[in-house]
């Protein structure tokens, strides 16, 4: 056996030392480079919406621990979404959002608007840098654009470490400006949907490409502003455990109505007479309390969080999220995930309007602001690749079960399922390099 040649010995030794001591010897080079995380996710509801979302995020660490994060998100959405009207024992006909063309819902089925087709591009950037005395400062921006929507936001955050970095206190603010430019314009809220046989015949293509103006439109666009405040404390408890507590406050002003959502107006027999566009308040104040803990067992980590949210629309919600990461041989891991969510209905939520009674100030039949329980069951499997890349797969099942918040269903409606539950599958592949 021959001893290795000189150049070879040095480089072999460098490689061997890197493996032992981490990247110290090549740190200078590695820090120059970007670290990328990518993910591709497919979300698919049974008979309803399907979405695909791709993210590429790059992180670059500079000298002095400054960090730049850039993220590009693309997503595409197709399929049908509940329009807010209730199921009826007969076929129902609705005007498409553009005002041109119509679509129908079969008897005894939840009416779905199959117009939905959208793509979104989102760009996010964040700069984080340490200051003196244990302070860390961060600033970021976000731009997102889809066919009928645009959002622009900026945020800044300051954090301070105390007590040998065992305690971190942070405060942040984010401001956002969103503009919605719905297809067909902003419908006049709480006015009836105009369904005229004269506009056009039944359009069975399931598309709505015309830039028509809905006869109910009162404006082409509207907007809203959001101010978010976030305060947090992170505390290391011991070698195995840490805890985070956050309080966040959010003030939203402007147009929060969903321009594509309607309510059925029922007579005393539960038969639909007309449909009216929904209307939500133009101000919303949210408070969220969030508690998260992570605990490192010998060969597993539990990540548990709880959130309580309450707002002045009357929505209170509880969210529990549990992830249990089990470390396997060779840095593989398997991570079951459980999530439970429960929300109360907004004060102005009602599944339908009653003919002959005065119109309320606000009304929405959108099940997403009604009483609802949801749960998610998932599992993730991750593994390292040969030269430090990481690959992970995730599959989850998501169930939404809207609940009756105490509304009686008149006449024929008693026979209809108006709180239909929704099943969805989420599949995701992540790759980091």
């Amino acid at each position, binding site marked *: 056996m021959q001893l290795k040649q000189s150049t070879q010995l040095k480089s072999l030794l460098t490689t061997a030392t890197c493996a032992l001591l981490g990247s110290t010897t090549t740190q200078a080079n590695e820090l120059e480079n970007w670290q990328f*995380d*990518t*993910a591709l*996710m497919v979300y698919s509801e049974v008979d309803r919406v399907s979405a695909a*979302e791709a*993210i590429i*995020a790059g992180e670059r660490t500079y000298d002095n621990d400054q960090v730049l994060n850039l*993220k590009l998100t693309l997503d595409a959405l197709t399929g049908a979404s509940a329009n807010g009207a209730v199921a009826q024992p007969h076929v129902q006909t609705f005007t498409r959002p553009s005002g041109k063309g119509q679509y129908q819902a079969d008897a005894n089925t939840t009416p779905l608007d199959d117009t939905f087709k959208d793509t979104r591009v*989102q760009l996010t950037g964040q700069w984080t840098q340490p200051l003196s005395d244990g302070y860390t400062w961060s600033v970021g921006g976000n731009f997102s654009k*889809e066919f009928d*929507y645009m*959002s622009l*936001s900026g945020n800044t955050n300051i954090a301070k470490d105390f*007590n*040998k970095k*065992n*305690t971190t*206190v942070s405060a942040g603010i*984010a401001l*956002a400006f*969103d503009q*919605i430019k719905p297809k067909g314009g902003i419908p006049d809220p709480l006015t009836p949907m105009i369904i005229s046989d004269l506009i056009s015949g039944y359009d069975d293509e399931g598309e709505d490409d015309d830039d028509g103006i809905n006869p109910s439109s009162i404006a082409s666009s509207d907007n809203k502003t959001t101010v*978010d405040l*976030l305060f947090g*404390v992170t*505390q*290391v*408890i*011991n*070698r195995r455990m*840490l805890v985070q*507590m956050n*309080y*966040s406050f*959010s003030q939203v002003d402007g147009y929060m109505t969903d321009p594509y959502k309607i309510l059925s107006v029922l007579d005393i027999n539960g038969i639909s007479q007309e449909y009216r566009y929904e209307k939500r308040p133009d101000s919303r104040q*949210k*408070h*969220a*309390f*969030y508690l*998260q803990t*992570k605990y*490192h067992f010998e060969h597993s*980590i539990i990540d548990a*969080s709880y*959130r309580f*949210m*309450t707002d002045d*629309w009357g929505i209170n919600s509880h*969210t529990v999220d549990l992830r249990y990461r089990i470390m396997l041989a060779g840095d593989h891991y398997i991570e079951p995930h459980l999530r439970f969510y429960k*929300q109360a209905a*907004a004060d102005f939520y009602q599944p339908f309007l009653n003919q002959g009674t005065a119109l309320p100030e606000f009304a929405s039949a959108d099940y*997403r602001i009604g009483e609802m329980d*949801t749960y998610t069951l998932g599992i*993730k499997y991750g593994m390292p690749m040969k030269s430090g890349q990481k690959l*992970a797969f*995730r599959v989850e099942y998501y169930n*939404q079960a809207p609940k009756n918040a105490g509304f009686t269903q008149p006449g024929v409606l008693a026979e209809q399922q108006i709180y239909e539950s929704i099943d969805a599958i989420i599949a*995701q592949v*992540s790759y980091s390099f």
Partner: protein
Amino acid sequence: MKKSHLLKASLVMLSIILTGCSSLGVEPWERDLLAKDEMALSSAPLDAALDDHIYFSKEASSGGRSFGGGGCGCN
């Protein structure tokens, strides 16, 4: 007044944590487990971003963990 009670309770908890924290924590050389990537509070940021987007558009709540989502016309 439910909300002011909640606010008060959380402020009390916060002060307990802030005063009690000096006895909690670890020395720098005991950070072997906490220093792992998988022990970071957001150890899978892309999973969290995707989840936030799903739940923001399918449920009436947002925020808490970080800034309240948004940036999409889904809700």
